[in-house]
C-alpha cells in the first residue's frame, strides 16, 4: 500500500500532453478582427456621429442648421400667441383679472357649499 508521503498529487500532470493549436485558428482571429472593423465603420456611418460627419463632409454646418431650426420654431410660437390674442379681441387687464377672480371665487364657493 502506498504511504501518504509517497503519493504525489501533482504526478498526473505529467500524463497530460501538450496539444498543438489548430492552424486555422489564426485565420478565424483575423476574420473576427475584420468583421469587428466593418461593424464599427458601419455603426459610424449609420449612427448620429456618422450622419453629422457625412453632413460636415458635404459642407453643411451643423451649428448653423440648429440656429435656423430654433429660430423657425420661435417664430411659429410667437405667431400662435399673436393669432390667439387677435381672435379673443381687445381686453383690458382689469377685465381679465376680474374674470380670473370670478372663476376663483366660484370655485371657493363651490368648495364651501360642498363642505356644508
Amino acid at each position, binding site marked *: 500500500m502506498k504511504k501518504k508521503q509517497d503519493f504525489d498529487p*501533482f504526478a498526473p500532470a505529467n500524463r497530460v500532453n501538450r*496539444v498543438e493549436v489548430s492552424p486555422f485558428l489564426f485565420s478565424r482571429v483575423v476574420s473576427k478582427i475584420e468583421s469587428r472593423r466593418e461593424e464599427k465603420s458601419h455603426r459610424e456611418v449609420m449612427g448620429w456621429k456618422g450622419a453629422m460627419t457625412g453632413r460636415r463632409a458635404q459642407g453643411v454646418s451643423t451649428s448653423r442648421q440648429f440656429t435656423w431650426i430654433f429660430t423657425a420654431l420661435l417664430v411659429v410660437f410667437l405667431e400662435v400667441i399673436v393669432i390667439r390674442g387677435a381672435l379673443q379681441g381687445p381686453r383690458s387687464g382689469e377685465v381679465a383679472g376680474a374674470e380670473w377672480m370670478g372663476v376663483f371665487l366660484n370655485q371657493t364657493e363651490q368648495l364651501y357649499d360642498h363642505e356644508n
Partner: protein
Amino acid sequence: MQSLEEIYRQHAHRVYNIALNHLRNVEDAEEVVQDVFLTVHEKGIQFEGKSSLGTWIYRIAVNRSLDKLKLRGAQKRGWGVLQYFDVFTQWVPQQNTEFNHPGVALEYKEELKQWFGWIDRLPEKQRTALILVRMEGLDISEASQILGTTEKAVESLLGRARKNLIKFSQKSEGK
C-alpha cells in the same frame, strides 16, 4: 514592433494549453485563444511594457479561462432551471462542459477526469498556479508575474494545492 501574426506564432500554443487545462474542452479553449488575440489586437497599444508581452498575454488567457469557468458555474446553478422552458433556452448561451482534452490519452482518461475534478475544487489561484507551474512548466517567477503576486506566494499556493489534493484523494478512497 511585432505583427499580430508573429505574436500569435510565439504565444498561441501556450495560450491554448493554458485554456485547455483550465476548461478541458477544445471549443471553449479555441474561443479563449480568439478572445485573447482580439484583445491583444485591440489593446496592444495600451500595453505598458511593465511586464513582458508573454506575461501580459498569459495573464489575459488565465482571466478569460476563469471567466468562462464562472459562466459555466452560473449556468449550472441558475440557468439549468430555465432549460425546462423551451422559450428561454435560445437566450441562454450554452456552455459545453463535456470533458474533451485531446492531450489526455485514452488509457488515462478516467484517472485524469477524476484528478481534474479535484483540481476544479481548488480555489482559483491554487488551480492556476498548479496549471502554470506543473502543467505548463513555467518557472515560479514567471508564474508569479502572471498571477500578479510574489514568488513566495506562488510556492505557498502550490503547497496548499498539494495538501488539498491529498485530502480530496483520501476522501475519494474512503468512499
